[in-house]
C-alpha cells in the first residue's frame, strides 16, 4: 500500500476532488459510504492545497453491473481525485484507467473532514486489497 503522503505532489496544482455525499452535499454534508449509491457528489476545486470552490453534482442511476456509470460520469465532469469509503475492484480499475486517483476516506464523518484530510496528505491511496472481494479486509461497497 502506498504511503499517506503519496498525494503531496498533487496539491501543487489545480484539481477537482469528488466526494460521495448525502443531501444536500457541500463540506458540511455527511460522507457517502457507497460511492455508486450516494445521493450526490460534492466537487471541491482545490489549488495549492486550498479549497477554492465547492459545488454539487447529481449522481446517476445505479443498478447491478452498472457500477461504471458513475466512473464515466465523474470522468466526464473533470474529476481528478475521488475520496471513497467502499468500492469494488471493477470501479477502482475503471477510475484508475480513466486517470482518476482514488483515496480511502471511510471514517470521515463529513465531506469537509475528508477533503481536509486529503489536502493534508493524510489519506491512503485506495488499492485493490481494500476493495470488496479484493482479498483484504472487506469493505461495504
Amino acid at each position, binding site marked *: 500500500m502506498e504511503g499517506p503522503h503519496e498525494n503531496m505532489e498533487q496539491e501543487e496544482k489545480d484539481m477537482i476532488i469528488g466526494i460521495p455525499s448525502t443531501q444536500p452535499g457541500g463540506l458540511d454534508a455527511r460522507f457517502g459510504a457507497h460511492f455508486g449509491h450516494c445521493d450526490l457528489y460534492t466537487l471541491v476545486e482545490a489549488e495549492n492545497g486550498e479549497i477554492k470552490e465547492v459545488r454539487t453534482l447529481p449522481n446517476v442511476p445505479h*443498478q*447491478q*453491473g*452498472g*457500477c*461504471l*456509470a458513475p*466512473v*464515466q460520469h465523474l470522468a466526464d465532469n473533470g474529476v481528478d481525485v475521488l475520496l471513497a469509503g467502499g*468500492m*469494488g*475492484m*471493477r*470501479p477502482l*480499475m*475503471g477510475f484508475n*484507467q480513466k486517470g482518476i486517483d482514488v483515496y480511502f476516506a471511510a471514517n470521515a464523518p463529513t465531506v469537509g473532514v475528508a477533503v481536509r484530510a486529503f489536502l493534508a496528505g493524510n489519506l491512503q491511496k485506495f488499492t485493490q486489497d481494500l*476493495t*470488496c*472481494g*479484493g482479498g483484504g479486509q472487506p469493505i461495504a*461497497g
Partner: protein
Amino acid sequence: MAGPYFQVTAKTNAETVWKSVVLQAVFGYTTSYFTMKKNIVLFTPSLNPASGFITTLSDDEDVRVTTVATAEEMLRLVREESPALVVLEEGADARKAFDLVIDILSINAMVNTIMITAMDPESWHEKSEGLGMLEPLPVPPSATDARKLLATLGRLGVFT
C-alpha cells in the same frame, strides 16, 4: 496465436446496407451502419451457434456477436475492440472464470461481463463481489435469457 473464431452478423442484408447509404447521403455520416453495432463477445464453447440464446442476440439489429474459441482470443478482442459485453462460460478455460474476468477488467474495466454458471447464488455472489458483473446466466441460457440480457444492456445505456 489467435484461435479460430467466427462472427454471427445479424441483418447483413440489403436493408442494412440501404440504411448505411442513406445515413451517409443525407447526414454525411462517414461511419457505416455496421460500426454502430455493439459487439458482444461469446466465449462459450459448449453452446451451439444455432441455439436460441445466440440467435436471439445476433438477430438484434444493434448487436454484432463474435464467438471465440480461446481465452487469448477473447482477451485480444477486449484489448482491440472494447466490446460492450463478454459472455463467459464457467469452465471454458483451464483458468478460473473469475480470474479471466479480472484479466478482462485489467485491460478495460468499461467492458461488461456475464457468466454462464450453475453456481448457487450465494457462492456466485461471494466470488463475484466487486467485479461488477451482470447477474449470471443459467446453464444453458435460453432465448428468453438473451432477451432479458439485451433489456439489461439497454437499461445500462449500452445501446445509446
